[in-house]
């Protein structure tokens, strides 16, 4: 999977070589541009005026979002006078002159520079460039020259040159390098999401080599936990979840995709491959299972299976989501705005949206169920993802089964000989004598009327269930069997012989008695039994099974009841046969007409219906040979044995299949061309013109074509002339290690997003990234080995005044970790975190009654053992009821793609960190470690705990505070043994647990600094 890329090789040993690339001559400076409507004026007017002044319902009849609208004016007349901004009504109102309220009404006035841009445009004669939008993000990046800086000796790599130049331009200096402890903890958290243990920290502090830092970076990048850490934000982008979303929110098996992401990061899969496989892995030549699993990226879309939902509409929403997510994740563009209309701010048309819609609307699904009954459901493909061992066993079994099946297909000579003997033997069929019952009763009160042929016909209302009792007197000395013939009759549906509306019946139990004593039944034989039913079940009795005859309607069938031992009868023996019809699932399935016979011949049997009907007619027998052979083999021992072996293998295969994990994948509909409809106002039923697939026009001159499929889309995204893909990804990697992107709105590189704080740096990184072969680890390595990254994070009053948001990076960022990282960090500090990689999602403890979804009985079953303490990204993610401790800390429901989580600070977070069972498990774990690893004295133990949490030793004030707390708690718990006993075995233990709880709640513990 991994390709070795040039850049990582270069950077592995030294940070300087690639700089030569950066010294390429800079592009000639841009000439001063003529100001067009399409530049600043259009964007400002759209953003600030468009809410009221746009579209068909524009206030005052004035549309300020188009050039035509602005030039036309509104009900008050013209609003611009070309060449004269001062007297243009637009400017008068924006500046609040002329005694009228300042526009925009109810909102703050426009910034002076924006008004000036509009003024300049009017004064310049209201020029237009004909609708061409120029925006930095749509112009392919070029490698800029490194800026020259005054301060020498600080920079470690090109990143620093760009950062320092900007600092110097703003009169700022970088901060001092952070302490070694801080740096080590920062690296561990940023690159693996886990804190260093005290011993790992010691090892790093002991390493005095000049390359100790870089060596640590390389070690952490090679850790399998690097993949887990990098997967975390990617799973938000991919809206990865373990349930469908919406009402029923049924569970789905999606985790193979999650593991694919972890693995791809660990293997350092180049970003172009990473992109291509997720979008179109299934379409690559000879796609591997892994490459198909990657397409789970877009299979992660929600799906609404609520009763009454039109599956076509549900699928439409799925495709829309795929367009939105793909544009956001790979293009940093808000293309979703163009679902209903042309984008208001960015140069994307509604047609652009549906060109991509067409690309994603060509995936396969199965339809199941009747639409007319409201039961139709659509399913997208799922594949099996076996381990090598499972795959081996699966193919063994499949081979066995195929062999057995082909052997059974063609009978061998011996079978055929036995078959012929059987046919011949049929002529000497068992002699059955029809009995003359003394009594025939129906417990449910049906009339059972004797017919001239000795049979009995049921009439009256067909009951749900019934019991027939037939009694007769036998004058035989021996009884070897009793036969029940079921006979057709015109009075039944389908002529019966059953009374159900189909003509079927289910005999669920048969009992035989002689002179009041039960006669054990050894076996039964039937002339025909419905597939899926087992007539033998009538012996023990089984309300859910027995003898049924679906498809043998309107004809006779027979069942022979054979006593376990041939019965010697006393003279004039009174025999009783009881037939029960107990099916709860199938009411009215009672026999409608029957006749009872007895036999004293050895091994009495009944012939298959087909044979019986053909008896005495050699031509008919000859014509029905193949079918008769099938009937014969049902009772032919060698065949039966082969069948049971086949059944065992099939069963094992089924069990194996059930154990093999599945993955949700995309498949392309073969043969179809890439085309779709524009949907007017974005509505499913409102179809407009047809468009072929293609990239947004502003980003590519390629015309749409019917061959622009997902693979073509992926190729276009990762082509080097795509202006967005590399920028969007390096910005996200920057966000991963610096907490905030160079473009802060990492989800929106359009005109409404924030512009990059360091545009040249962004371009330098983007071009370098592409030139490196899209090497993600190398890029991360470059970032974390910069001097910029290695600064301390403490602010100063002067810095806060000058750059409160730290946009210029005169210090390292400091922020609370993400939800999953808070959990991982806490459990790692407590020494209870499981480091197991991958596998099915797990159910750590959560409060009761979080899951309660309509029409869905699925329950949260708390995992056992180490699965309770797995890393946060393995927690089962149910969209309608996400894990509460994560939700409290700004994790999302993963219903749609999230690029950036908002970082909030709330009392519910405090409650979770103080009181959640998980938090207490961590505190108890840490307390144990403090006692066992921390040393003998209280002070040493507290210092150890503090170090586990923060990476550093407490200063004297901190140590004093914590010791005082410990002493106070100890006295408290000595006095209250009951309370102490709930936390630990001793009062000392309880006090330590609560000190640990305090340590784990420190802002420093939950923050990356």
């Amino acid at each position, binding site marked *: 999977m991994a390709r070795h890329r040039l850049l990582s090789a270069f950077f592995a040993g030294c940070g300087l070589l690639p700089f030569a690339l950066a010294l390429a001559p800079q592009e000639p400076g841009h000439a001063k541009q003529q100001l067009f409507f399409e530049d600043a004026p259009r964007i400002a007017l759209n953003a600030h005026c468009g809410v009221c002044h746009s579209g068909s319902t524009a206030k005052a009849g004035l549309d300020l979002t188009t050039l035509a609208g602005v030039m036309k004016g509104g009900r008050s007349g013209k609003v611009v006078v070309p060449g004269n901004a001062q007297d243009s009504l637009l400017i008068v109102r924006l500046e609040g002159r002329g005694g009228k309220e300042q526009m925009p009404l109810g909102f703050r006035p426009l910034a002076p520079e924006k008004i000036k841009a509009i003024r300049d445009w009017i004064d310049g004669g209201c020029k237009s460039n004909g609708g061409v939008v120029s925006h930095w993000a749509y112009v392919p990046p070029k490698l800029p020259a490194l800026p020259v800086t005054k301060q020498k000796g600080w920079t470690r790599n090109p990143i620093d040159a760009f950062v320092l130049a900007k600092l110097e331009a703003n009169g700022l200096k970088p901060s001092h390098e952070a302490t070694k402890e801080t740096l080590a903890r920062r690296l561990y958290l940023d690159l693996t999401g886990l804190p260093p243990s005290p011993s790992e920290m010691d090892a790093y502090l002991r390493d005095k080599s000049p390359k100790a830092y870089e060596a640590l970076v390389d070690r952490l990048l090679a850790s399998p936990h690097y993949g887990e850490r990098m997967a975390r934000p990617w799973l938000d982008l991919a809206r990865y979840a373990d349930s469908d979303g919406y009402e029923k929110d049924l569970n789905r098996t999606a985790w193979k995709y999650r593991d694919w992401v972890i693995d791809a990061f660990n293997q350092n899969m180049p970003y172009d491959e990473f992109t291509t496989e997720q979008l179109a892995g299934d379409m690559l030549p000879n796609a591997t299972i892994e490459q198909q699993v990657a397409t789970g990226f877009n299979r992660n879309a929600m799906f609404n299976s609520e009763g009454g939902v039109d599956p076509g509409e549900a699928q439409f929403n799925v495709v829309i989501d795929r367009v939105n997510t793909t544009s956001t994740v790979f293009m940093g563009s808000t293309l979703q705005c163009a679902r209903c209309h042309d984008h208001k701010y960015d140069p994307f048309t509604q047609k652009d949206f549906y060109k991509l819609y067409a690309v994603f609307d060509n995936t396969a699904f199965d339809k199941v169920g009747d639409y007319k009954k409201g039961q139709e459901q659509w399913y997208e493909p799922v594949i099996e993802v076996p381990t090598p061992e499972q795959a081996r066993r699966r193919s063994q079994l499949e081979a066995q089964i195929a062999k057995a099946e082909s052997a059974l297909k063609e009978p061998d000579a011996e079978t055929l000989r036995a078959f012929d003997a059987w046919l011949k033997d049929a002529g000497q069929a068992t002699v059955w004598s029809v009995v003359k019952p003394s009594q025939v009763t129906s417990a449910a009160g049906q009339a059972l009327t004797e017919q001239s042929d000795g049979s009995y016909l049921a009439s009256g209302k067909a009951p749900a269930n019934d019991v027939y009792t037939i009694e007769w007197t036998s004058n035989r000395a021996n009884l070897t069997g009793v036969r029940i013939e079921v006979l057709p009759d015109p009075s039944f549906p389908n002529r019966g012989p059953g009374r159900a509306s189909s003509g079927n019946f289910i005999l669920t139990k048969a009992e035989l008695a002689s002179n009041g004593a039960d006669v054990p039944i050894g076996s039964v034989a039937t002339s025909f039994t419905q597939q899926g039913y087992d007539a033998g079940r009538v012996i023990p009795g089984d309300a859910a099974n027995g003898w049924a005859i679906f498809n043998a309607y309107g004809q006779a069938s027979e069942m022979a009841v054979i006593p376990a031992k041939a019965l010697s009868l006393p003279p004039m023996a009174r025999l009783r046969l009881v037939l029960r019809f107990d099916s709860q699932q199938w009411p009215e399935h009672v026999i409608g007409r029957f006749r009872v016979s007895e036999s004293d011949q050895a091994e009495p049997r009944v012939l298959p219906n087909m044979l019986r009907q053909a008896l005495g007619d050699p031509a008919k027998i000859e014509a029905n040979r193949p079918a008769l052979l099938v009937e014969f083999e049902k009772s032919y021992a060698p065949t039966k044995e082969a069948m049971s072996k086949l059944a065992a293998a099939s069963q094992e295969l089924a069990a194996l299949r059930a154990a093999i994990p599945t993955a949700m994948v995309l498949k392309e509909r073969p043969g179809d061309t890439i085309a779709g409809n524009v949907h007017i106002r974005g509505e499913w039923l409102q179809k407009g013109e047809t468009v072929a697939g293609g990239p947004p026009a502003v980003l590519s001159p390629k015309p749409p074509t019917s061959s622009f499929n997902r693979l073509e889309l992926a190729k276009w995204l990762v082509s080097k002339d795509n202006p967005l893909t590399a920028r969007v990804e390096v910005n996200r990697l920057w966000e991963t290690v610096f907490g905030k992107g160079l473009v802060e709105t990492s989800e929106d590189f359009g005109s409404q997003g924030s512009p990059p704080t360091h545009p040249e740096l962004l371009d330098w990184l983007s071009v370098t990234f592409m030139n490196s072969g899209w090497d993600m680890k190398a890029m991360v390595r470059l970032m974390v080995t910069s001097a910029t990254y290695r600064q301390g994070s403490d602010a100063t009053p002067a810095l806060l005044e000058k750059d409160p948001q730290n946009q210029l990076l005169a210090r390292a960022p400091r922020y609370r970790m993400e939800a999953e990282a808070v959990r991982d960090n806490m459990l790692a500090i407590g020494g209870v975190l499981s480091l197991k990689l991958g596998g099915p999602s797990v159910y750590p403890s959560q409060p009761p009654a979080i899951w309660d979804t309509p029409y869905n009985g699925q329950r949260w079953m708390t995992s056992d053992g180490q699965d309770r303490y797995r890393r946060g990204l393995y927690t089962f993610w149910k969209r309608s009821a996400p894990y509460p401790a994560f939700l409290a800390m700004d994790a999302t429901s993963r219903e749609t793609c999230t690029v950036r989580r908002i970082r909030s600070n709330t009392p519910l977070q405090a409650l979770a960190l103080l009181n959640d069972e998980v938090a207490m498990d961590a505190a108890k774990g840490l307390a144990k470690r403090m006692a066992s690893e921390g040393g003998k004295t209280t002070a040493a133990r507290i210092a150890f705990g503090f170090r586990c949490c923060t990476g550093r030793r407490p200063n004297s004030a901190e140590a004093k505070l914590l010791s*005082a707390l410990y002493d106070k708690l100890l006295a408290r718990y000595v006095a209250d043994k009951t309370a102490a006993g709930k936390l630990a075995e001793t009062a000392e233990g309880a006090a330590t647990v609560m000190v640990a709880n305090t340590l784990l709640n420190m802002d420093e513990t939950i923050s990356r600094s």
Partner: protein
Amino acid sequence: MRDKNRPWPETTLQRLTRRTFFKEVGYGIGSVALMNLLAEGAFAAQQERHDPLAPKKPQFAPRAKNVIFLFMAGAPSQVDLFDPKPTLVKYNGQDCPDELIKGERFAFIRGKPKLMGSPYAFSQAGQSGQWVSELLPHFRDIADDVAVIRTMTTTQFNHAPAQIFMNTGFQIPGRPSMGSWLTYGLGSENRDLPGFVVLISGENNPDGGKGCWSSGFLPSVYQGVEFRSQGDAVLFVSNPDGVPSDVRRDTLDTLQHLNSMQSAKTLDPEIETRIAQYELAYRMQSSVPDLMEIDKEPAEVHELYGTEPGKKSFANNCLLARRLVERGVRFVQLYHRGWDNHGTSEGDDIMHRLPKLCSETDKAAAALVADLKRRGLLDETLVVWGGEFGRTPMNEARDGSTYKGRDHHPHCFTMWMAGGGIKPGISYGKTDELGYNVEDGEVQVHDLQATILHLMGIDHTRLTFHYQGRDFRLTDVFGNVVDGLLK
């Protein structure tokens, strides 16, 4: 430093609210409208508190301070409860006219359905003479305080999307709910409880799941907080076993001290906020149990509501709702799920299940309005009752079911509102003779949302949040305040 490329409100915000959470909320995402709301002086208080839930001044004089939304999840039948249709009764059992159902998509009905008049009698109540079904005897007592809207319409006819739409103004989960928008815009008067509280009774959680009270792209501090009737009322509010309250206080004192020292060293304003939030958490540990102790209410109150302390019931939740607005909580939402009366069995038909649902909710809902009124709280509290859509005037008869039931119906349904500036004792709007379509006075979901915001002193077009490249609002690009509902 001010970045000249950045839109003005954020630069202003950054300058002004340096020490608030908005820094982390990021800037670049939003807070445009909030500045607007803050512009008139409430700002000073905000700055001192560093608190996103501090009360903020509305845009104009509000009619209501708080909202109680009784969400009847599953969608109650309007023609059996509030909108009498004698013509429908007259044509009971006849084929539904073709012109009504031509090209129509139903959730479950297939083929040609039959009209079904209500089996329940209607009569007029109160001085206003509002029509009400015999299934709602207690509603008669508050008929003169209520505006019944018969002409609600929605665009969605499946539960989850329709509930999400009613709450967030958009049918796909991911946008902020009404309660989140209101607490974002107005903060909350109570400092010891969340500003947006959700209470659940009935069969299950609502079909829309937690998306119904999600803060969407707004900061999670505006998320609805579910007060549960089982276990901790608020998740994690109780101290763990073995941690008495004084121990918790001691640990918090040390913690706050340690954090203050960090704050002084790093100058990270988030630490100050965190210290404040830990204190609020501590206060919630007593304010939440205090709130939940409804058994301390006098017997007369329990009789009025039909409450039984300790039970998971709509009645208990109505009483809790009153206690919450008394304490100044901004938005309280009750969900009672079960109104999905398709008639596939006795368990979901209109002859057995519907009367049961009415008896579970009618008394307590009426008691809530009456209780608020006698306490002088109805003037400042807006009570809203209703589901996500209506039900068909036709019998569903799914797979030939003989139980009476009605399918989902988005073209007209009934909701009611009381208090908080609502014109009392009126029936708003006119539906056709069969109760199929609106004839006059359509109120779309976005109109209802605009009206609720208006009563709270907010122009729905001006409560916005900038996210992914555009300004979002509760009402999307729609919505008109329904003047005819205003006092």
